[in-house]
């Protein structure tokens, strides 16, 4: 089969440039295979994160021809080979080296989210109908491609005020957990900045697990925030009943 040219970003915090590598294409080859070929034969110090090579761990996130992708899931035969294939690190995160970025910010945000808190006295009888919805969110492999593509982070750098789609998915998984008894609506509005999301759906477009991030996680959470903070009738009802805002 024909060769492909990969144009890979090489550099670190100080800056960098792209370098071209010629790679023989085999049937069914993915971009990560090509990167491994480069490591094995042309540039042993080319830095890349990867683990499972089966789209289960979410390590090999990068931007292939400008699109945030998992390299292990991006088939070479789906890319035009007449031009070099551009492989760049995720743009939204600070670069460490070559294709590896510093994603530690995500782990810091994650710590802000109160953990699963079972309702007191639950009998742990849980039915599939109640679980289906949450299981979709639990498919997340933390590839952070949604964080990378989200313009609130990518273009507006709201790293201080905004948690990003990944963590709305996590919060959705907790909020809609049939046994969880805690409300995170205030956190969503005040600390995770759900209001910054303008539901333009790029997170959903790039999700390799095909989680309907916008429709099933973010919008339902926005509606829950509305229940708590913007719906005058519901707010009045709660006031009359004297309901505590931390419980569901």
């Amino acid at each position: 089969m024909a060769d492909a040219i990969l144009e890979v970003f090489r550099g670190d915090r100080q800056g960098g440039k792209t370098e071209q590598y010629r790679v023989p294409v085999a049937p069914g080859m993915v971009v990560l295979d090509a990167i491994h070929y480069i490591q094995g034969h042309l540039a042993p110090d080319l830095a890349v994160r990867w683990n499972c090579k089966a789209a289960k761990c979410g390590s090999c996130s990068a931007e292939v021809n400008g699109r945030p992708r998992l390299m292990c899931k991006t088939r070479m035969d789906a890319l035009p080979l007449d031009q070099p294939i551009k492989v760049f690190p995720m743009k939204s995160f600070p670069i460490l080296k070559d294709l590896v970025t510093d994603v530690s910010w995500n782990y810091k945000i994650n710590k802000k989210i109160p953990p699963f808190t079972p309702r007191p006295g639950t009998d742990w009888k849980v039915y599939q109908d109640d679980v289906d919805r949450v299981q979709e969110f639990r498919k997340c492999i933390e590839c952070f491609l949604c964080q990378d593509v989200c313009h609130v982070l990518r273009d507006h750098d709201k790293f201080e005020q905004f948690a990003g789609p990944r963590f709305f998915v996590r919060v959705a998984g907790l909020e809609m957990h049939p046994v969880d008894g805690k409300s995170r609506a205030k956190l969503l509005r005040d600390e995770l900045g759900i209001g910054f999301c303008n539901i333009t759906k790029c997170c959903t477009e790039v999700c390799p697990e095909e989680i309907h991030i916008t429709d099933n996680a973010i919008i339902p959470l926005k509606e829950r925030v509305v229940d708590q903070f913007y719906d005058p009738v519901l707010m009045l009802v709660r006031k009359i009943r004297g309901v505590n805002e931390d419980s569901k």
Partner: protein
Amino acid sequence: MAGESVTVSQGHFVGTLRRDAWWTEILPAALLLGAFGIYATFRAFEGAYYTWGPYLSPFYSPLIDPQHHFWPWSPALLILAFPLGFRTTCYYYRKAYYRAYFMDPPACAVGERKRNYCGETKFPFILQNLHRYFLYAAIIVLGFLWYDAIIAFFLDGHFRVGVGSIIMLVNVVLLSTYTVSCHSLRHLVGGKIDCFSCTSMGSPRHTGWRAISILNERHMLYAWCSLISVGLTDLYIRLVAAGVLRDITIL
């Protein structure tokens, strides 16, 4: 924090490494929404040619004070705010116009203008949170439109099927699908429940929520179909009312 030291020219407005013609994603939305906006504004202010025989334009339903007893302007202006508000605050249309007109972002992984972006945290966009109240209004308006669609099959007390009656029926069906597939309705029917099996009426609400969820997956499709159909229905009635077209009797 992002990418400050990377010497890659994709940070500026519409900068991207994408190879495809990303702007084709927003072009149809921009054109269609623009065309509808101009037409609807024109029709709302026109205040004429909105009814013919049993037909009433959806832009003018429910028809209030057509004889201008207390409202001197076009009667459409009295009610159009509700369906338009429903669409303006709709979770799907928000995506469409934020992308097509505000370029926030123009397309995925395509750079946008650097400025003080606030999303939906500040006025006026914080009002998007009131979508459910527009839903309530839209449901009421939808009731009138169903009434209109049914009486459109009766001319002078006799059952009659005209092209217009079919158009109005199709339109109200599409509008209903669009309304029923609404994200806010989905939330109110069942989305807000964490544990269906431990809530009273949980089972029927789960069924309802499931059904709306299935429709909701195609909310975008219904949004466009119903937008086009409502515009064309009005156009048809306008042309018939103005005498440009003649409504053909089918049955």
